[in-house]
């Protein structure tokens, strides 16, 4: 059955979703603030009214634009719409998730978060890939599979929406950490410890917000992190390497060539952890490093000297 699909945001992911949906024979309209050209039969529009008639809407904007985009969508959506976002960030010190923002700004309730080792190019070109959809609504899962799935994209699902969103947001930060560590020359063993213990650290925080530990160990967390370090050319890798070479945070961000949500996420997580008196050795060390307060040698020493216990 042909679906009418709306995509909000015409960045890399927005275009890839539009192309994948169109390839599966669905009618697609892409909304963005500026005029964009996309290959036929994809429609483009700068009028938010264009998504009113869509059954399924993908919100594909960075987290920092999510509030504004959700407010625009709030003007046209109602209870009939189903919506999925693919942002990797969180909002504010209370680590507000994007689904929460959408629920506050719109009346859309059938919501989901698409995450995991999903790469825009692979999605656009139809190369085999996989993703995880966090949603409590089985009908939304069915619709996303119908829109994007087929034989080239395996869309797994979980009801742990907040887990998917938190895992996805924290992978960006862990990717920067791993790229930094690799650049300063730590070996595979240290990288493995950083990756594994880093994921445990963020999952501990996630659980205080209602997430399940297993979600961090699945496609949304470790799966995505493996894709990132295996070389899917994420800007977080460039940022981590630039920082390791001594660049300041602002120049490293410039070098990475993209807005990196991971740094903000780390600071937000630390604030949250402070309130709950949780230990966050990797996040705290990395934030201190990125602000130039400690050297990489100090960072590694501080982490290695910590008391070690049962996994």
């Amino acid at each position: 059955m042909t679906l009418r699909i709306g995509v909000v945001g015409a960045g890399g992911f927005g275009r890839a979703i539009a192309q994948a949906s169109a390839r599966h024979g669905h009618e697609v309209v892409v909304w963005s603030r500026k005029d964009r050209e996309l290959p036929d039969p994809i429609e483009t529009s700068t009028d938010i009214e264009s998504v009113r008639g869509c059954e399924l809407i993908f919100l594909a904007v960075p987290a920092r634009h999510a509030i504004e985009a959700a407010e625009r969508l709030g003007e046209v959506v109602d209870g009939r719409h189903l919506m999925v976002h693919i942002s990797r960030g969180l909002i504010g010190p209370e680590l507000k998730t994007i689904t929460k923002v959408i629920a506050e700004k719109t009346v859309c309730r059938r919501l989901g978060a698409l995450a995991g080792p999903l790469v825009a190019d692979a999605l656009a070109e139809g190369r085999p890939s996989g993703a995880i959809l966090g949603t409590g609504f089985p009908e939304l899962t069915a619709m996303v599979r119908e829109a994007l799935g087929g034989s080239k994209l395996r869309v797994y699902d979980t009801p742990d929406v907040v887990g998917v969103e938190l895992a996805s947001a924290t992978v960006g930060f862990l990717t920067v950490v791993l790229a930094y560590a690799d650049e300063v020359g730590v070996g595979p063993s240290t990288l493995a410890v950083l990756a594994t213990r880093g994921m445990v650290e963020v999952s501990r925080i996630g659980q205080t917000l209602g997430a399940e530990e297993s979600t961090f160990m699945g496609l949304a967390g470790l799966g995505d992190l493996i894709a990132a370090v295996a070389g899917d050319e994420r800007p977080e890798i460039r940022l981590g390497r630039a920082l390791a070479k001594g660049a300041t945070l602002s120049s490293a961000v410039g070098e990475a060539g993209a807005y990196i949500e991971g740094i903000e996420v780390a600071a937000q997580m630390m604030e949250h952890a402070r309130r709950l008196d949780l230990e966050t050795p990797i996040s705290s060390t990395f934030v201190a490093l990125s602000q130039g307060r400690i050297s990489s040698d100090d960072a590694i020493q501080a982490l290695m000297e910590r008391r070690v216990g049962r996994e």
Partner: protein
Amino acid sequence: MLKRFLSERPLRLPHLKPYVPRPSDPSIFWFNSERDDVISDVVNRICNAHETDRARLEMALNDAAFHEIRRLEKQRDEEARDRLGYWRSMVRRIGKMDDSEQRRVLHTIVTNMARDIAGNFDPRVYRFARLTAPRLIGGVMEPRRLTEGLMAGSPASLDRVLRVQGDLDHLRNLQDRGSLVFVPTHSSNLDSIVLSQALETSGLPPVIYGAGKNLFTNPIISFFMHNLGAYRVDRRIQVGLYKHVLKLYSQVMIERGYHSLFFPGGTRSRSGMIERHLKLGLLGSAVGAFTTNRVRRVDRPVWFVPTTINYALVLEAETLIKDWLTEEGQARYIIEDDEFSRIDRWFTFFRKMVGMRGGCIIRFGEPIDPFGNAVDAEGKSLTPTGRSIDAGGYVEHRGKAVVDAARDAAYTRELGEVLAERYVKETVLMSTQVVAHVLFRDLVRQTPGMDLFTRMRLRGEIGVDAATLCRELGETRDRLFALERQGRVRTSEVVKEDSPEELLERALSFWNGYHDSTAAAREGSQIVIGDPSLLLYYQNRFVPFAEDIASPEQLKAASEIERLGVQR
């Protein structure tokens, strides 16, 4: 024997002349004429759901027999002697029964359950309760005025104790357009009585509500509950079918336009904290009622009214917090030996309350649809910017309204989260809670690194200079007012109007002489903490805001208090 008789056999007044409801009567006046129809609707829906699936049917019967045998073997009472034989014989025969016999047994079990649950409504009892209850309660509060109160005039004592807040006109506007579902916070067994009174004085309709079967053992309460529409919930029964019948009974009643009340917290808040994790079963029944009506094209929407019941003094505070603090307490769901069952405590409690202005505030929050949206005067759902939408769209799949249990379960989970947030915003912070919080925060500051349970043993060991405490009270209250201006909290009139010194005296006076132990008392220039667990109970309402109302020096202690909400 008497207990069982009272809890199982409704005491009803003889019907000499059947009452014919008038159009202006609330919907519940029609209940008795519909009661059998409601029961058969519930039974038929459950039997139909098991009609074609033998495995499911057999599983349901086995589950019922297994749980009932286990419960009755533990109970070893008269009910066990009566019913154990039936279930043991049934469980032996299930595998040998043919389809029609299994269906017949299911029908019998479900019918018995539905009859046991279903309430009764007698307009005469309603009128009697409406006329005399406030005066009787007022009389308990001020015995000297009992005769005067019963004869005439308004029950001034009750008015002084019970305040009602909220947009009552909005609720009154909606009551004839659909079903209102009141979902209050739960602190005390007095809640349903106090809330019924608040509905009555506010011109809001009477509601049906589920009451624990344990409450029916008190003959007076049993009589009123049986005859005022309460349906009975036996929390000891773990059978899946029973829970199904209970939810469906609630759903069918809401579908038919009966206004309802249930406590989504499931049980009284043991800790005194604002409930965060809500039980979704009965909430789901109301969401299901909305869906079913939409699918059947019945224009009878459902709206939820988040309600907070705020006491300056909680009748059962000591038992509840003790329960929370002990491991045993985690498993005790039904408490039968608390202050609620002691009539002397009722007298002391009410007299304390009436002696102090503003002891209880019922706050009705803005009504919302099952999807968490505000509604306008006509009940139309609104977007955050005030655009009107059709809530029916939420249950449509590709343009058609459909029943989808998984979808509705997800909506119910989200509704639970919305209600938990509303509770925080609609809670009215009372004088005793403010004082308890400031004192408890001082206790935490004075005992760094100590765990909660060790602190609970510090009876009479920690004191705070009264003048310092009053200064802290004043500063904390100023920060609280700043939060109130942002719409994040609400404070009672007393908290707003009293000086810090008056607030302190009021709280000490509320606590002392009612609770068995002394929460705090004045000793010279010091306020000495007597029972930290009572302070903990009253201050726990502040857990979500502790950091926001702390000075930089108090922040560490406040963070520790906020963590109380995460640890358990």
